[in-house]
């Protein structure tokens, strides 16, 4: 585990893929979301072609403000020629991405392992 001073996320490197988990199960406090956005950007800036898996298994609530930070991260990762995947979303959180049509912007996988394999083999 190498968290690099992050407080809102835990980062584990698996086969050169950064696997991110959230420290909070309810991602909603505005100040905390701002901090989260900064940490996610810092993570993406530390790599030349970021490969990022965001594991949602601990997340019970995710606000639209938090989603906005993921959109910013996705743009950043794409601009750097990297790739990003979301995994392990509980049904309600998956609905959130479906209702907003953001499941066409983000690539969503059921399990972390398959996303890691996909990012390391292609």
């Amino acid at each position, binding site marked *: 585990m190498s968290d690099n001073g992050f407080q809102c996320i835990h980062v584990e490197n698996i086969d050169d893929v950064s696997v991110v988990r959230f420290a909070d199960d309810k991602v909603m406090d505005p100040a905390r979301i701002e901090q989260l956005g900064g940490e996610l950007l810092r993570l993406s800036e530390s790599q030349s072609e970021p490969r990022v898996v965001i594991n949602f298994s601990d997340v019970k*609530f995710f606000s639209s403000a938090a989603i906005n930070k993921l959109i910013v991260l996705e743009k950043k990762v794409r601009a750097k020629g990297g790739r990003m995947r979301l995994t392990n979303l509980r049904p309600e959180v998956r609905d959130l991405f479906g209702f*907003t049509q953001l499941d066409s912007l983000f690539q969503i996988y059921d399990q972390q392992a398959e996303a890691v394999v996909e990012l390391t083999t292609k």
Partner: protein
Amino acid sequence: MLDVGSEANFLSTQTMPNTDWISNLERSIPSDTKVACQLIREFVAQMQDAGWNEASIFAVHMALEESIMNAIKHGNESDPEKFVQIEARFSVDRFEAEIVDEGLGFEPSEVADPTLDENLELTSGRGVMLIREFMDEVEYLDGGRRIRMTKRVVDER
């Protein structure tokens, strides 16, 4: 306290007058997102204690979060002199709420559709749509300064 006129008692007088409310919140809070977050956390925790399932709690949490944050940020423009009036209550199987701000109001139909391809990467404007998706009934009144919403408990998946 904001003068909300005769409609202030809409929820208590016109909907489900005989409902046994487990929690019945009526608060006026300053335009402070931290205060709002705490209030929402407490309300949601009460639903959990009362045995509401995760899917239904998530829907209520989403609607309260988005409506109150919209009221603070877009309605009251985070002006600490302005207040948000919150009524929220739930029974064993029903939730209803009314959120009122002191802003200039807005026209919900004029909010850009965030699900269109050209708007997918926008980092704002999803709140109104999410509230409609997660609630059963949503109504905007007073030029958009007042939102009413209801939800029946959904089956656990």
